[in-house]
C-alpha cells in the first residue's frame, strides 16, 4: 500500500517575512483508505554553526558555542488518529511566523560554517507494522526591509604596481594601470553589484578579470572566535586581452540563499566581500578587496 505525503506552500517562491502566516496544504495521496495515529506539523528555525577544520582543536573548549541556536519552534496537530479516505486529500494549514520573546528571525542563509534554515516537518504516526511517514520542506525567510534609506556611495579605485601590498619582488612586476569604480559597497541584496573598470594600460596582456564573491563567517564568543573567508562564486567579467581604455561593466547578481544581509550577532557574524581579480598573461594575480555591506530594502 503506497502513500505519499507532501507539503505544498502557497507561495511559489516560498519566501515569507516575520509576522506573516506560512500557509499551504499537506497533500496525502493513497489508493486505499489509510489508518493512522495522528498527523502533526512542526516549524523550526535553526542556526547551525560549524568550526572549520583548522580551528578545531584550538577551540574545542567552545563546544557549547557550536550548539545550534533555535530561532523559532512550534508544533500543531493536524489530524487526530483516524482514517484518511482513498485518493487525494489536502489538509490546509497556517503557521504564524512569530518569534517568542526578544529573539530575531535571521534571514535564511546557506553558508559553510554558518547555516540559517527554516523547515516545516510533517509527521504521520502509524501502527506498529507500518513505518511512520515524515516530510521536510524548507521555506525561506526574508528580513523585514530596513527602514533607513541606503544612499549609494561610489567607491573609486586605481590599481597600479605601487598600490599593491603583499608582493615579493616589486621590481619584477610589469607596469599596468587599472582604474574603476563600484557604484556602491553597501548593496541592496536584491540588486546586482555594479560598477565599471578600465584597463588604461598594461605591459603584459590581460588573461582574465574576475569578480570573486567571498563570505566571511565568524563563529565565537567572548573567549575567542574562528573567522573564515570562503568563495561563494567567481564571475568572469573579462576574458583575454581586452581593449585598453574601454570601460568594462562590473556586474554581479547576488546568489539567493548563499547571501543574506550582513549579519552580526553575539555568537556569529556573516559578512561579505568582493575581490576584483586580475590575471595577467604571465599568470601574475592581482587582487583588490572590497568589503561589502548587504541589506534588504
Amino acid at each position, binding site marked *: 500500500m503506497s502513500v505519499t505525503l507532501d507539503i505544498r506552500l502557497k507561495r511559489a517562491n516560498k519566501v515569507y517575512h516575520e509576522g506573516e502566516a506560512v500557509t499551504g496544504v499537506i497533500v496525502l495521496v493513497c489508493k486505499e483508505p489509510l489508518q493512522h495515529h495522528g498527523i502533526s506539523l512542526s516549524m523550526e528555525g535553526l542556526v547551525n554553526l560549524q568550526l572549520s577544520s583548522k580551528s578545531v582543536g584550538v577551540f574545542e573548549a567552545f563546544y557549547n558555542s557550536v550548539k545550534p541556536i533555535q530561532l523559532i519552534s512550534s508544533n500543531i496537530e493536524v489530524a487526530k488518529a483516524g482514517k484518511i479516505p482513498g485518493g487525494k486529500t489536502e489538509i490546509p494549514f497556517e503557521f504564524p511566523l512569530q518569534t517568542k520573546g526578544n529573539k530575531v528571525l535571521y534571514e535564511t542563509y546557506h553558508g559553510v560554517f554558518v547555516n540559517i534554515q527554516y523547515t516545516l516537518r510533517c509527521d504521520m504516526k502509524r501502527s506498529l507494522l507500518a513505518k511512520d511517514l515524515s516530510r521536510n520542506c524548507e521555506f525561506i525567510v526574508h528580513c523585514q526591509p530596513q527602514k533607513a534609506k541606503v544612499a549609494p556611495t561610489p567607491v573609486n579605485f586605481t590599481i597600479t604596481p605601487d598600490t599593491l601590498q603583499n608582493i615579493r619582488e616589486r621590481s619584477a612586476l610589469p607596469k599596468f594601470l587599472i582604474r574603476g569604480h563600484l557604484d556602491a559597497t553597501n548593496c541592496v541584496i536584491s540588486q546586482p553589484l555594479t560598477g565599471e573598470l578600465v584597463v588604461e594600460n598594461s605591459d603584459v596582456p590581460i588573461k582574465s578579470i574576475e569578480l570573486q564573491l567571498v563570505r566571511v563567517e565568524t563563529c565565537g564568543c567572548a573567549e575567542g572566535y574562528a573567522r573564515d573567508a570562503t568563495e561563494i562564486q567567481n564571475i568572469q567579467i573579462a576574458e*583575454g586581452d581586452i581593449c585598453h581604455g574601454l570601460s568594462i*561593466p562590473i556586474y554581479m547578481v547576488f546568489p539567493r540563499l548563499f547571501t543574506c544581509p550582513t549579519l552580526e550577532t553575539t555568537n556569529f557574524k556573516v559578512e561579505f566581500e568582493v575581490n576584483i581579480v586580475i590575471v595577467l598573461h604571465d599568470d601574475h594575480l592581482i587582487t583588490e578587496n572590497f568589503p561589502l555591506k548587504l541589506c534588504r530594502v
Partner: protein
Amino acid sequence: MSHSASTGDLGRKRREKEEEAVGPDFEPWSSKRGEILARFTTTEKLSINLFMGSDKGKAPSPGSSAVSEKVRTRLEELDDLEEGSQRELLNLSQQDYANRIEELNQSLKEAWASDQKVKALKIVIQCSKLLSDTSVIQFYPSKFVLITDILDTFGQLVYDRIWTMCSDPRPLPDSFTVEDVNDTAKETCLNWFFKIASIRELLPRLYVEAAILKCNRFLNKSGIQETLPRLTAMIRGIGDPLVAAYARAYLCRVGMEVAPHLKDSLNRNFFDLLGTFRQISGESVRNQLVLQRVEVPEYLTLYSPAISWILQCIAYRAPEPLLTEMMERCKKLGNNALLLNSVMRAFRPEFVAIRATDFIGMIKDCDEAGFPKHLLFGSLGRSLACADPPESERLTILNEAWKVVTKVRSPQDYINCAEIWVEFTCRHFTKREVNTVLADIIKHMTPDRAFEDAYPQLQSVIRKILTYFHDFSILFSMERFLPFLDMFQKDSVRVEVCRSIMEVFIKHQVELTRDPVILNAMLHICKTMHDSVNALTLEDEKRSLALLIIGFIRMVSFGRDFEQQLSFCVEARATFCNLEPVLVQLIHTVNQLAMETRRVMGGNHSRKTAAFVRACAAYSFITIPSLSSIFSRLSLYLLSGQVALANQCLSQADAFLKAAVSILPEVPRSISVEGKLRSSESFLLDFINNFLATLLVVPDHPEHGVLYLVRGLLNMVQDYTWEDNSDAKVRVYISALPLLAAMSQETYLYSVPKVDSNETLYGGDPKFLSEINKLCETLIGQILDHLKALGRDEQSTRRQGAVAFSLFGVLLAHGDLRNNKLSQLAVNLWNLSHKHGYCETRISVRTLESIKQQAQQPNMTHLSDTVQRLTLQSRT
C-alpha cells in the same frame, strides 16, 4: 516531456508570427546560415574540448547540513559535469565536427525531454565555451553558426516550457503581459536567470542569457529593454575581437527576433565594435595569425558575416540620418576597408547608390594593406546593380571603378569583380561602353587561358548583357561580342551559352530580319549548336537544339527578295544537315516561299517566277529523301506535290506524288511515337485518304495510262503487307470508291486554278467512264470477297458487320441506287451488317431517317423503295 512536445507546433506558429513583426523584407538569418557554412571551411583538424573539468578552485565543503549540500552540488554541477566525464575530441574533420555538434544538439533535446534540465544547461554552457576557442580560425564563422543553432534550440525549449506552465486553464495569448503569468512560472523563469547569472565564464554566461532573452517577457515588461544594453556592455569584456564581433552578431540576431523595435542597443553594439576596431591590428591578433599561418586579408574576411549582419539589423528600415551618421563614423575611423565593405553590403542599395561618388572617394582613401580594394569595388558594384546612382555621376563612377578593376592582377579576382560591374555598365550605358568592358575582359582572361577557370563568371557576363540588350543588331555590332564568345572553348559551356543567346533571341526578336550582321552571327551560333550534336547526344537535347534553330530560321525574311531567301535556305540546309526537324522546317519555308511567289504574281507566273517556283520544287525534291522519318517524307511529298500543282508545275507535282507512292511499301508496320512502339496502320490510312483527296485534281500524265496514279496507289495498297486480321486494305478500297465516283462527275467538286483536271482532259469521255466503272467493279468485288472471307470465321462477324455497313454507307452516298443491282447490293449489305446484331441501333435508326428524308427530294424517290426493304432488327 509530453507537454513540450505537444506545444511544439504551437511554439512554431508563435515564432512565425513574431518573425512577421520584422517584415518579409528583412533577410532572415536562416538564409545566411548556409552561405556561411559553405564559405568558411577548413581542411585542418579541429578539436572539441568539452571541459567538464575536475573540482579545482572550489571551496572545500565540510559536512554542512544535507539540504544546503544538495543545493550546493547542484550549483556546482552547472560548471562541471560529473567527475570523469571530461573528454577532448581531437583530430576531427570539419564534417566530423559538425556531426558532433549535431549530436550535442540531439542530446540537449533528449536531456530536456527526460527532464534533466541541469544536464541540458550544462551542454549549452559547454557548447558556448567552444566559441572562445579560436584555433583553426578560418572555421570560426561556421563554428558560430553550428553552435548558435544549439543555443536557439535551448532558448526555444526554455521559452516553450515556461509558456506551457502558464497555459492552464487556457493557452496564453500571443500578446500576453506579465499579469497573465502565474507565480510558479515566474519562479521557474527567475530560477533560470539566477542559474545563468552564476555561470563562471564570461562567454557562456553571455550567450546563454542571450539565448533565453525572450523569457524576460514572463518576468517584467522592461526586462528585455534593460537586458539588451547590459549584455551589449558585457561584450566589451571579450578580449578577442573576432569572438566579440560574433557575440555582437548573435546578440543583434536575438534582439531583432525578440524586440526589433529596440534599435538603440543595435547601434550601441556597432559603436562598441568601432571602438574596439584597433584591436584587429593589435599585437595579440598578429601573434595569433602568425601562429596559425593565416594571412591578414583572409583573417579580415572572417569578420564580414558578423559585421554585415549587425549592419543589416541596423540598416533595416532605418532613417537616412542614422545611415549617414554611420558613414561619418566609418570615415572617422580612417575609412577602414573591412567596415566600408560591410556598410556597402548591408545598407540599402538605394542609399549606397546615391552616395556612390562618396563611397568611391572613401574606397580610394582606404589603406591598401589587408583588405583588397577590388572586393570593395565588388560590393559597391553589387549595390549599383540594383539601384541607380544620379545620372550625372554614372560615367565617372564607371571610369573610377574600372580604373581599379582593370588593375587587378589575379584573373580570378579580376573576373569576380568585373562580372559584377558588367551589370552596371549594361544598365546605364550603350554598346560602346559594354564593348570596351568586353575588350578588357578578353584582354585579362586570354593570357594563359585563364578563361578556363572562369566559365561561370563569363557566362554570367553574357547573361547580364542579354538581360539588357534585346536588340540583336546592336548586340552583334559590338565588335568584341563574338570574340568574347570564342573564349568559351569547352564544348558543353559553349553550347549552353549559344543556347541562352538563342533563347533570348527567340523571346525578344519580334520582327523578321534580313540584317546581314544578325544573320551571320546567328548562323555562327546556330552552327555551333548544330555541330555539338554527335552520336551520343540525347534525343531531347537534339529536339531542343532543333527547336532553337527553327526559331531562328522562322525569323529570317528577305521580304520580296525570294531568291535570296531560297539561297539562304540552301545554305541553312548545308549547315544544319544533321538535325532533321530543321530540314523539315526548311522544306516548309521553301514551300511557303513558292506559295508566296504565287500570291504576289496573282497566280500568273512569269517566265522568271515559273523558273523560281520550279527551283523551289527542286529544292524540296532533293531535300526530302534525306529525311529518315517515313511519315515526314510522305507528308512532305504530298504537301510539296500540292504546292507544285498550285504553281502549275505539273511534271514536278507528278514526280512528288509518284515518289510518295513509290515509298509506300517502305512504311514499317509499327513506328515509335513518343518513345512507344505503335502500329503505323492508322497513320497510313490517314495519309492515304488525304492522298486520294488530292488525286482528284491531278491530271493524268499524257504518256501514262488513264488513272495512272490511282492505279499505282491501289497496286501498292494491294501489295503492301498489311497486318494480319486487319481490314485496312479493304478500308482503303472503300475510301477509293468516293474518289472514283467524284472523278466520274461532269464537273469536279474542286479544282486547282489554271490547272486542267481530268474533267477537262477527258470531257466525260465514255472510255474514261468505263475505265472508272471497271475499277469500281474490281474494288467492290475485292471488298465482297473479303466480306465472304470474314463470314467464314465466327470471331470476325463483328468486323464483317462493320465493313459491310461502311460499304453500305458509301454506296448510299455515292452510288446510283436507281440501278437495281446496286440497290439490291445495298439492301444485302444492310442485312449483312445487321445479321449478327453488332450494329449500333441508334446509328441504324438515324441512317434510316436520313434516307427517308432524302427520298422526299425530287429525283430521289427511288430511295423510298429501297427504304422499304431495309428492316431494322429488333433486339428481341
